[in-house]
């Protein structure tokens, strides 16, 4: 029995570790969908780009610039990469997405899907399809900690705590600040918010920047855990979409909670029947769609 509990806790921790990425990515998707009504299919590719940027900053940039000594490590990347990816996202919104708002949301989805394929293709072209390990895991996060029920890599523990902190911070900003109130109001009735004198187009651009920045941040966090590969985003995004559907499209709270929860469910399924672990999320998605089409946290009706 004791062994069983340890096993459950251990798989739970590993599941939570996946949940980190589900939560951060679905959080970004939910923010973007809420305000822009765009289903950002490029989210996975931006996550992948984030991981690659971290890798490039450390392993390649110095070589390209002829400065062999230059290796920009994990901590600076954790700040720089989300900014870079967020800026790229804002350009994307200003130059491409903006023209599609007056049309059916499906056009936004198709456009971002195209962007995802282009990004993926570019990275496949310049790096191989097989993964490249990220060598710059910070020294202070190497090694393991004993959690009592399992030995857990320090870095993964950091990733879990850090992303819980990030999700909480984003949630607080949205729910408790004036900027967040503008965002929520803009999600409900952008025309009226505009009539009050709030620059909604700018808010939309910044929101897209923050959402995509979160994807970049998740990419940096993922780089030391998974090997960095051009397909890492495509693999993950499908699960993340299921998470978003289960949580409720556009629900911030739903995105975060169901992200972590579904990571856990996935982990625990491994204890009970391991082969089902990769499908359990989709099964849940079907059940949720049938019983509560707007998602667990979405506004029904």
């Amino acid at each position, binding site marked *: 029995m004791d062994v069983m509990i340890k096993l459950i806790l251990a798989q739970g921790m590993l599941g939570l570790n996946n949940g980190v990425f589900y939560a951060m990515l679905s959080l970004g998707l939910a923010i973007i969908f809420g305000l822009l009504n765009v289903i950002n299919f490029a989210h996975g590719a931006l996550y992948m780009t984030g991981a690659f940027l971290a890798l490039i900053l450390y392993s390649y940039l110095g070589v390209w610039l002829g400065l062999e000594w230059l290796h920009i490590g994990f901590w600076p990347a954790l700040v720089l990469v989300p900014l870079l990816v967020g800026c790229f996202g804002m350009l994307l919104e200003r130059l491409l997405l903006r023209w599609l708002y007056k049309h059916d949301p499906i056009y936004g989805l198709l456009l971002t899907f195209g962007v995802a394929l282009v990004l993926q293709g570019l990275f496949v072209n310049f790096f191989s399809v097989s993964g490249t390990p990220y060598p710059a895991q910070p020294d202070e996060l190497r090694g393991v900690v004993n959690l009592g029920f399992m030995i857990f890599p320090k870095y993964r523990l950091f990733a879990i705590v850090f992303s819980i902190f990030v999700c909480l911070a984003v949630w607080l900003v949205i729910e408790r600040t004036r900027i967040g109130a503008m965002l929520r109001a803009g999600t409900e009735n952008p025309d009226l918010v505009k009539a009050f*004198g709030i620059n909604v187009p700018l808010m939309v651009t910044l929101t897209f920047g923050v959402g995509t920045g979160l994807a970049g941040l998740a990419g940096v966090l993922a780089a030391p855990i998974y090997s960095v590969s051009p397909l890492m985003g495509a693999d993950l995004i499908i699960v993340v979409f299921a998470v978003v559907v289960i949580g409720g499209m556009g629900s911030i709270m739903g995105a975060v909670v169901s992200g972590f929860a579904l990571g856990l469910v996935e982990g625990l399924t491994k204890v009970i029947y391991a082969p089902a672990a990769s499908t359990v999320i989709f099964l849940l998605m079907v059940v949720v769609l049938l019983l509560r089409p707007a998602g667990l946290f979405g506004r029904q009706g």
Partner: protein
Amino acid sequence: MTGAPSSYLKISDLNAWYGESHVLHGVDLELAEGELITLLGRNGAGRTTTLRAIMGMVDRRTGSIAIRGEEFIDIPAHRIGPLGRIGYCPEERGIFASLNVEENLMLPPVVGEGGMSLDEIFEMFPNLREVRRRMGTRLSGGEQQMLAIARILRTGSRLLLLDEITEGLAPVIVKTLGDVIRRLKEKGYTIVLVEQNFRFAAPLADRHYVIEHGRVVDRIEAGAVEASMDRLNHYLSV
């Protein structure tokens, strides 16, 4: 008989479109500072659209909208409110469901000096003070309407566009709103009222504009209302 020598708001030949459909066909109206006018007419005549066109909430608009002599027709929507110091209270009140009362109240940015303080607002709308933590949609219709008016008074707007503020409200609340509008007029606000309830509007207004099929078809000064009752009944009968 014509409006004041210097119009606060002067609209000439205002045309507006939603997508392909042409909904305003040359609206002309004007009012001086401190005046209150009403836009009367049947549902779908273009009264709400006139207010929305002033706020830039239509797909396209042409003609002229001058506020204190400045042209607003080409100003982007999010700058119209602040530049024109306009407070807009939309049909259906536009209370945000995911914001609580205080957040709703604080949402519109201040557009000029002289806005009411929270204390003054709670003095004018005592009910709102008690429900300030409640979510926007968990209010009665009357409370929502008070909130929708209160939040534009906080911003220092001087020109108020109020769309159907009495719709669906109990007589006692309509009476309270009448008192509120009267006090606002005394404070020197310039007000455009879209109203279905002529008995509510008649004692408040300086002038009535009747709108039909997207244009102004008649203009009746307050003093001439009595004599024009037959005409008015004809315009407003369904």
